[in-house]
């Protein structure tokens, strides 16, 4: 049995430095799976491998029964995996609306001539893009903001949510969220938590990197724990909380303290 996303023995090294090795796990449709681990454990590297920012040096990524490692980034987006970035990467001088509209790219098709001649089909498509954009801005709670405002001048928390809206515009089946509540206060974290639940209820499977343990414990169905580029544990939040290896990775081993 394999899930929506299957990672099979993924390895990634940069020169002599091994960032990931022997990573295997499955994500089932409809799940929210959390990826946790100390800084530098290889969590973002995993996202970069899945979305083909760079290819894995070993193993393969299988999505919906088909091997996707080796495909270019935009094709993977079209197959149904989109992501947000740890350090927000919006098109900062484009407007709020345009950012989400760019996200619709792979679900629309008007080329140069249709765009220039403004054919009836092209105008209908643009209307559809704008309609979907409004819908998504409502979903992420940005319906009140000025759509014509430059994305870069939005408050930080809103930028995070706008990035999620852009990722959803491509109608993903799997959404990769890289630290969506980093730098947010409790109230904002709560809002993002509710947003993640709303997105899940739309049938989107979510893989979530997050350091905020309260969010991870509440939101995730299962957790995968990384340390030094290896998977050290996998299970439900409760299992992970009590796992001695995880406690060691986060807090250090008992004898380690004595040695120091």
């Amino acid at each position, binding site marked *: 049995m394999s899930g929506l996303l299957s990672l099979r023995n993924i390895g990634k090294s940069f020169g002599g430095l091994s960032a990931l090795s022997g990573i295997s796990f499955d994500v089932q449709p409809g799940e929210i799976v959390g990826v946790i681990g100390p800084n530098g454990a290889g969590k973002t590297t995993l996202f970069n491998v899945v979305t083909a920012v760079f290819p894995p040096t070993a193993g393969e990524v299988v999505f919906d029964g088909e091997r996707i490692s080796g495909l270019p980034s*935009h094709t993977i987006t079209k197959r149904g995996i989109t992501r947000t970035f740890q350090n927000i*990467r919006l098109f900062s001088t484009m407007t709020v609306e345009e950012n989400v509209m*760019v996200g619709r790219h792979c*679900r629309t098709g*008007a080329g*140069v001539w249709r*765009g*220039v001649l403004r054919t009836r089909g*092209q105008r209908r498509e643009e209307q559809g893009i704008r309609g979907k954009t409004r819908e998504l801005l409502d979903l992420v709670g940005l319906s009140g903001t000025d759509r014509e405002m430059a994305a870069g001048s939005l408050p930080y928390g809103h930028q995070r949510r706008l990035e999620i809206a852009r990722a959803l515009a491509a109608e993903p089946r799997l959404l990769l969220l890289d630290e969506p509540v980093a730098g947010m206060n409790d109230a904002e974290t709560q809002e993002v938590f509710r947003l993640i639940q709303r997105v899940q209820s739309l049938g989107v499977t979510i893989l979530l990197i997050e350091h905020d343990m309260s969010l991870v414990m509440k939101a995730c169905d299962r957790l995968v724990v990384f340390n030094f580029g290896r998977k050290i544990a996998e299970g439900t939040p409760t299992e992970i909380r009590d796992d001695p290896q995880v406690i060691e990775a986060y807090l250090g081993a008992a004898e380690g303290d004595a040695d120091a």
Partner: protein
Amino acid sequence: MEWLNPYHLQVASFVLINAILGVSIYVTLSTGQLSLGNAGFMSIGAYTAALLSTQHQVPIPVGILAGSLLAGGAGILVGIPSLRLSGVYLAIATLGFGEVLRAVLINWESLTGGAVGVAAIPQMGRVILAWARDRGFSPESLGLQGNQFISLTVFLILLLGTILTVAFFLRLSRSRVGRAYAAIRLDESAASAAGIPITYYKVLAFSQGALLSGFAGALFAHSTSFVSPGDFTYHRAVEILVFAVFGGSLHIFGPVFGAAFLTVVPEALRAISDYRYILYGILLVLMMVFRPQGVIDPPLLRRFRRSGKKTPA
């Protein structure tokens, strides 16, 4: 009709050709690629149109079309390997392409006439006047002298070409493709993650820029009736770049304004036209210091639009 001075019309015609060249570098820049090969692509368009009409008696519009398409095709060929380069390296490679092409034009004498160039290219205005006279029309009936009519015709054809070009790319910039261009310029990996095929759009923008340069070159050949390798040197490449740097490259009106300003001012200040390149240098340094985005940028245009709306109210 004294005011309709062929000299002024010729300056205006150069403004228009330069405006198309300005748009050509803008299109490529709108995906974040700096190409200095546009003088080279211009020479492909100019020589193709010139040789087709002088040696093969091909009608002028067909020659212009062929020149533009050939330049666009060359753009694809140069664009694909150039994709591995970005920033200043792409600029150097494309500049090199332009210089190699110029060396070919000088040395392939049997085809291009070498350093002497191609002369006696049918001039658009003259051809149209001859055609009109055959049908019993005389420009005098409009109160125009022959040379006024010729210059005016060339100007109007170029004006039409420029308006069509600007309208085309203005509309493109507000479409799905235009958004993809802007996304690539602002953040390539985010654009790619958003589902945009980077390679396709970069080559598309590069070849569109090349095609436009070729178009400008072909129009140039049929306006001046003489082309030589000296028209497409390094100076031309830099001049096109300056249109975009001075005018601004974030909106299509930027390089159009830059081309107009930098063509008219040296003509108006004839006395110092020998020092034009010194002026360009000073201008560039000043722009870098005080307004690196160019004279015209989207916020400025928005302010104009808003005050334009306020005034009538």
